[in-house]
């Protein structure tokens, strides 16, 4: 457990730093999928294998591909210098977020977690499905949240189409020629 934890934690954190600090955007996207894979490993360790499968399918598969498409559509010449990818807030941002991270880590460390034992999660997919639908002892609010999430996904897909489509009557390659 400890070896797996150390391996996954270092993989996740190093890949996260790679997303922030790598000069190439494509490398950032690949580092991001590495961080997501590490999180999926954590889910397996935390007795949520179904969630790990979701993570691999949705994040490592779909979100990374969508972001790579976004990179392809907005590709620019590679940044040569580190300064050009970083805005002026490099060190102020570092200090603020290091403070936030240290504060969060401190809070969760001083908290008394005695009485917490691993293994309370639900291993079986059927239990997760019943939870998502709010039946069989799960809070009923999950049924409502499930419906809201599906409506939200529909609205988001329609909004994505409407926002990103080219205006009619302005030429098919309006985005490229100008």
């Amino acid at each position, binding site marked *: *457990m*400890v070896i797996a934890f150390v391996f996954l*934690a270092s993989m*996740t*954190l190093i890949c*996260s*730093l790679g997303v*922030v600090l790598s000069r190439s*955007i494509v490398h950032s*996207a690949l580092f*991001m999928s590495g*961080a*997501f894979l590490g*999180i999926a490993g*954590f*889910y397996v360790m*935390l007795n*949520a294998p*179904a*969630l790990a499968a*979701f993570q691999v399918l*949705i994040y490592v598969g779909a*979100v990374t591909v*969508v*972001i790579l*498409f976004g990179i392809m*559509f*907005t590709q*620019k010449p590679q940044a040569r210098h580190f300064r050009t*990818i970083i*805005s002026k807030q490099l060190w102020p*941002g*570092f200090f603020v*977020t*290091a403070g*936030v*991270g240290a504060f*969060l*880590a401190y809070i*969760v460390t001083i908290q008394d*977690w005695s009485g*917490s034992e*691993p293994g*309370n*999660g639900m291993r079986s997919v059927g239990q*997760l499905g019943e*939870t*998502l639908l709010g039946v069989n002892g*799960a809070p009923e609010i999950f049924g409502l*949240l*499930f419906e809201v*999430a599906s409506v*939200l996904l529909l609205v*988001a*897909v329609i909004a*994505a*189409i409407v*926002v*990103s489509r*080219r205006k009619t009557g302005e030429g098919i390659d309006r985005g490229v020629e100008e």
Partner: protein
Amino acid sequence: MPPQVQQFVDTLNAALPLEGYLVVGAIMFAIGAWGALIRRNAVVVFMCIELMINAVNLSLVSFADYLPDAGGFGAGYAVLVIAVAAAEVAVGLAIVLAVYRSRKTVNVDEVNLLKG
């Protein structure tokens, strides 16, 4: 097997405390926030926001697995968070594409007009 080796193996096999996962989640959240603050490319800012969402998901799932009264419902919330994050990526990248079409840049420092 000598007792020291046995003890070491037991230590390696022991279950981790909850703090380990939470600290990893906190550090990952901070790294994501740092990237969202300092990077210029809007697509990379999206990636960093995804990192922050994943860190919060990791905390949720570890709470659900460790706390006896949680009943494992955190995994359900995590699924909902994943759905909302997917919707956010779709709309966000559409907005980035629309901005790129009208302004020819995805640099968030140069996109400073609400209308124009």
